[in-house]
């Protein structure tokens, strides 16, 4: 089953090359719908009580190099897989409703992107994870560069994309070296194995963990992007075609956060504890910087982009509370943010079509004749600002709860991020939907097709708000396991320092 989940999009993409031009978008949407069906079936069969991997598949791939083709589902990734399938269906269907240049290639790349992203989520072999992590970039390189828009006075689409690729690959290539080093150090002259579970059993020495930790962290923080490593984001977000940006922002950033939980915490517990505060500082800086930028930007895409920086900062902070509740909240928040930001960018695409500009100052009054669009947008907005009653509220609550108990100072700073998120989310809503309607901006209700794309996505938000336990119940076990190694280490450290103090007295 997990194999069919992974490869269905790719197979549909390749087969789509033979489908007539007018149909290829719907063919691709069918492929993503089928993938979603498989993902739902996997969730239905998911046993939240069972420890370890489910639906796993393990085969030899390059035995001489110790690389295995090993996939599996557990509480950490089951909802991220589902999120990927949902968001991709939305993005693909939205793109299929519009005419695309060279549609065969466009949808092939979309579907390759889905396979690569799913691969990164389900890979249980460290090297396979790195491979899919790098592979994700390739289709998005083509999509951003080939279908993106050049900016006047700014870089062309291909230049902006190149910047993104170079930035993100710095991290991923160092990660490749780090992954290999981890396996070789762990093997200690024996048979090399990249199995994440095997490597987590017996973490490598503290000295090696230090540099390996940063090689991995660099890859994940660039991908998110975190403050100081976000240089590629503004140009790339402005260049990207919007349906593609919806899936990119909705899912790909989460792979970075997921990488911390799947790889860094279990494999490098000592270094994680050592650098906890450094990463927390980066996370808080992302929250503050992202929020401030989000409420000063006038480009509607960048408001979305910087708000993602802030939200991902929250998620990182939750993970680096190094407690089960913080990490639980982080996983829930990854799903929430994906579900919020994907419809947000689809709405942005609709707004840009209606107004012919990406500048929020030139928009306004869009709600007048479009109550349904306004209502949908309002729900998304309220979820973004983590209104009590939304799943985002629960997620942020868990994150802050974890952070308060781990590092109270950091938690106090993080709280301000919630206040700021209310400001930028409401500002975006008001500027576009309310106010006086400028010349040349048309207020029109969304079409049936767009509605059919948006409404299910918004229904997912509402559904999760009503029943967040759906996620929390299934993830908790795996999250506990992910932070267990770190907690064990910190307890040991505490006991050691306690002993030292006792001896001094």
């Amino acid at each position, binding site marked *: 089953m997990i194999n069919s989940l992974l490869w269905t999009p790719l197979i549909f993409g390749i087969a789509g090359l033979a489908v007539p031009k007018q149909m290829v978008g719907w063919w691709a949407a069918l492929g993503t719908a089928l993938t979603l069906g498989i993902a739902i079936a996997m969730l239905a069969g998911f046993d939240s009580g069972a420890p370890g991997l489910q639906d796993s598949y393990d085969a030899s*791939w*390059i*035995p*001489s*190099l110790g*690389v295995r083709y090993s996939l599996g589902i557990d509480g950490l990734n089951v909802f991220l897989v589902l999120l990927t399938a949902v968001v991709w269906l939305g993005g693909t269907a939205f793109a299929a409703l519009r005419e695309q240049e*060279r549609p065969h*290639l466009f949808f092939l790349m979309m579907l390759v992107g889905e396979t690569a992203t799913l691969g990164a989520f389900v890979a249980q072999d460290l*090297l396979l994870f790195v*491979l*899919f992590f*790098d*592979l994700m*970039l*390739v289709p998005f*390189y*083509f999509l951003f*560069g*080939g279908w993106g828009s*050049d900016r006047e006075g700014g870089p*062309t*689409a*291909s*230049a902006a994309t*190149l910047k993104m*690729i*170079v930035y993100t*690959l*710095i991290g991923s*290539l*160092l990660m*490749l*070296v780090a992954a*290999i*080093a981890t396996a*070789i150090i762990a093997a200690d002259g024996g048979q*090399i194995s990249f199995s994440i579970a095997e490597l987590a059993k017996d973490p490598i020495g503290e000295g090696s963990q230090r540099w390996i930790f940063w090689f991995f962290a660099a890859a994940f923080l660039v991908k998110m992007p975190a403050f100081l490593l976000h240089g590629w984001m503004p140009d790339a977000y402005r260049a990207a075609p919007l349906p593609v940006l919806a899936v990119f922002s909705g899912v790909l950033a989460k792979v970075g956060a997921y990488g911390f939980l799947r790889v860094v915490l279990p494999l490098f517990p000592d270094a994680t504890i050592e650098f906890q505060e450094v990463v927390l500082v980066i996370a808080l800086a992302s929250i503050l910087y992202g929020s401030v930028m989000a409420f000063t930007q006038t480009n509607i895409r960048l408001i979305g982009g910087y708000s993602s920086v802030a939200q991902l900062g929250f998620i990182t902070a939750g993970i680096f509370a190094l407690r089960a509740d913080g990490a639980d909240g982080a996983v829930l928040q990854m799903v929430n943010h994906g579900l919020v930001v994907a419809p947000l960018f689809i709405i942005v695409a609709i707004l840009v079509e209606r107004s012919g500009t990406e500048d929020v100052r030139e928009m306004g009054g869009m709600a007048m004749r479009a109550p349904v669009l306004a209502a949908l947008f309002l729900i998304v907005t309220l979820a973004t600002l983590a209104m009590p009653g939304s799943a985002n509220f629960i997620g942020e609550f868990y994150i802050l709860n974890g952070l308060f108990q781990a590092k109270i100072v950091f938690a106090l700073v993080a709280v301000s991020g919630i206040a700021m998120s209310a400001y930028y989310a409401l500002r975006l809503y008001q500027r576009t939907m309310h106010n006086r309607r400028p010349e040349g901006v048309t207020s029109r209700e969304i079409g049936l097709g767009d509605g059919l794309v948006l409404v299910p996505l918004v229904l997912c938000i509402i559904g999760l708000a009503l029943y967040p336990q759906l996620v929390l119940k299934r993830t908790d076990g795996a999250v506990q396991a992910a932070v267990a190694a770190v907690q064990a280490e910190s307890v040991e450290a505490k006991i050691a320092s306690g002993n030292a103090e006792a001896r001094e007295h």
Partner: protein
Amino acid sequence: MNFQAPEIDYGALAPVIALTIGVCVVLLSAVIRPLRRSAPVMTTTTLGITALLLIERWGEPETLVAGALRLDDLAIAISLIAIAAAAFAVLLSIREPAAEQAGSGEYHALLLGSVLGMVLLAQAQNLVSFFVAIETLSIPLYILCATNLRHERSLESGLKYLIVGSLGSATLLYGMAFLYGGSGSTDFGRIANGIDEAGLIGDPLVLVGIALVAVGLAFKTSIAPFHQWTPDVYEGAPTPITSFMAVATKAVAFAVFVRFFLVALGGEAGDWQPALAVLAAVSIVVGNVGALGQNSLKRLLGYSGVAQAGYILGGLVVASEAGVSALVFYLAGYLFMNLAAFSVIVARERETPFGDDIRALRGLGAERPLLAWPMTISMLALAGLPATVGFIGKLYLIEALVEGDYTWLAVFIAVGTMISLAYYLRVVAAMWMRPDEEAAPGGAPAIAGASPEADPIDPDAGRRLYLVAPALLAATGAVFFGIVPQPLVEFAEHAGSSLF
């Protein structure tokens, strides 16, 4: 004084003999009028027979002609890579102006002569056969570079290669003299013993010898800072020849590099490992940075070749079985990646008036997808992106480097790869994305037709099977071995284990 003639196993020498006969026959065909057009066919046949004779010896290592040659799996693997590159070059040379101007028979005979030198060099186990083989492979190449008689650049390329190549050979020979002086033997195995017995390990004269040999080989493998000839020669030479040089010469030179350093100088490894590691690092940086500003695709691939040579050298630096296997794997992968690119360049050179300028690729994605895909795959593979043989190659090399405690060099490879994306992806962008300037693809530049140097344009070159098929074949190989690498890994492991 009694002299005993060495026992010669003609069976094992059969590949060399077949090639020699092939050279003579192809050369003679040039003077026999009815056979004039058959040189490519005869060349391909010779290459095929040689390959079969070599494959037959797979897994049965044997020392030949009193230790002058050693036909083991490493030699066979590298020879097969060289032969495959030569076969591609023959296909790409169909209707190549250079081949017609120089005379098809002569051109192909020279090509085969160079292959003969390569097959010998891959087996060389003795300083004398080493040097004779390296000259046998180089001299035909000097001439082949200059075969595009109407192009000043081609002549310049041939002359430059001759001068620099001779300098490299001279350096190599000087180094050999030192090592012979130190060990009293020309045989690789006995050099190791001789140096050891004479207590000369770490002796300055022996070290000077090692350094000179390393420099001579660095010339041949175009490792920085001995690479300056590479972009110029690559650019000026007829493109099929460039492709052959880029793949085959590099592979064979690395084979002898590995054999000489591990068999003859294995005892000195501690001395040369750090030096070669520094060379590799310099080469990675110089090659990748040099390629950034290039508009000529052949120059770009020349500089990229310098960087790739740096990666490959990493396999020798660690002096381990895994390292040599990784090196052979990378060279085999390099065959696919590079030949896909060169096939497309040949097609576009004949099809557009832009020559090998990057403009020749504009809009290729829409116009000729069957050429654009191989080129794209080739660039992504050279950049080491996943699902291509380039990724596995880098993975293999980095694994060997980390195992051999050269993690810093692995980090260099990662950083170099990152720089390399800037130019590889520029080529991809030219094919698939909107051009930076408004100049429409296909707009004729002023020089077309007016210049005596311009070759006639064949507007259908991009559809010719003999150009599209090699491009597709090589690209398929690059993807196939990226997804199913195990067969190629085993091939490389066989080759790597033959020295240990």
